[in-house]
């Protein structure tokens, strides 16, 4: 009897080890169960919310679409260049994340401006170079008002809107959203909090492992 308990305990401990090493990030957002018949059996599958197709102009005035993010994981946020509240803190933190994954072809960064009128690509270019960003691993994009505010609310679940009562006229949340290669949302982190940004970096490693295994 004792032996049985011991073995059960040991396997439990073993199981828990396996579970932690294979920990997966949750899939966030809306989900929908779908019934499918596979080989004569009725199966229930879940369809998760994904980011739809998009097309913007980046800091080099080059079109950037969802295809540029195919087979990559990416971190996205909403900001504007003249913002002096949470944006500097967010991008000070994002810069740390960028520096950590700089040059990794499987990781990209996507910052949407919500100041449609003022933040034209030339403005974004000057902002990016002042932040020390070259190349296009980190895209700063400009789009139409509806597409930016729409994708923020519906696809990335980030609140961003124009508000005439705000001193700067624009209000937005500071979330960093982690998106996987299937364009599913895998994490949301407060970009103004250092501990959450550190968690993001750990979760990105985890997601890279899940998506690409150990391939380099």
């Amino acid at each position, binding site marked *: 009897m004792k032996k049985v308990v011991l073995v059960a305990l040991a396997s439990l401990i073993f199981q828990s080890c396996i579970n932690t090493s294979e920990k997966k990030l949750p899939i966030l957002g809306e989900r929908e169960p779908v019934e499918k018949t596979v080989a004569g059996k009725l199966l229930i599958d879940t369809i998760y919310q994904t980011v739809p197709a998009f097309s913007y102009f980046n800091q080099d005035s080059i079109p950037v679409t969802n295809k540029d993010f195919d087979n990559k994981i990416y971190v996205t946020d909403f900001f504007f260049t*003249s913002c*002096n*509240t*949470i944006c*500097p*803190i967010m*991008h*000070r933190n994002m*810069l740390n994340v960028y520096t950590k994954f700089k040059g990794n072809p499987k990781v990209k960064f996507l910052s949407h401006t919500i100041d449609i009128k003022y933040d034209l690509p030339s403005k974004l270019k000057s*902002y990016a170079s*002042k*932040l*020390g960003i070259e190349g296009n691993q980190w895209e700063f994009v400009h789009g139409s008002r509806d597409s930016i505010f729409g994708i923020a609310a519906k696809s990335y679940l980030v609140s961003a809107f124009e508000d005439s009562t705000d001193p700067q006229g624009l209000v937005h949340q500071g979330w960093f959203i982690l998106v996987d290669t299937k364009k599913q949302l895998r994490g949301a982190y407060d970009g103004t909090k250092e501990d959450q940004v550190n968690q993001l970096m750990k979760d990105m490693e985890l997601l890279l492992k899940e998506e690409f295994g150990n391939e380099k």
Partner: protein
Amino acid sequence: MRNKLIYFIFLTIAFTSMIQSCQNETSINFKRYYVNGKRLYENNCQNCHGSDGKGLGTLYPPLTDSSYLNLNRNKLACIIRNGQTGTVRVNNIAYDGIMPGNQTLADIDIAQVIVYITNSFGNKQGFYDSEFAKNDLVKCK
């Protein structure tokens, strides 16, 4: 003779303790300004200039350039209240962004922020009274 000596000792003690108390008052004031200045800095300046005063890239200049702060000591109050546009050179790097002003800060608040900034981040420039701020602010362009 003995009385004179006692009198002299008493006077010396009284005099030194007076000086001592003056110094203490200045250092208490300094500490008061510094602590309040830190809180004001966190609420009004830190987003851009950072908790370590290092700024961010060439978007926001650092506050670690002691010689800039020293050379422009009389202009700091005006910069904090009214903001700044145009190119500034800090640590010999050009910054051409727009710094917004802080119109809601009173003279004493500005003095406290200046005490905090000019005595943090590797700077050590001593006390700056609210009277100094008042005088400097009159001269704002």
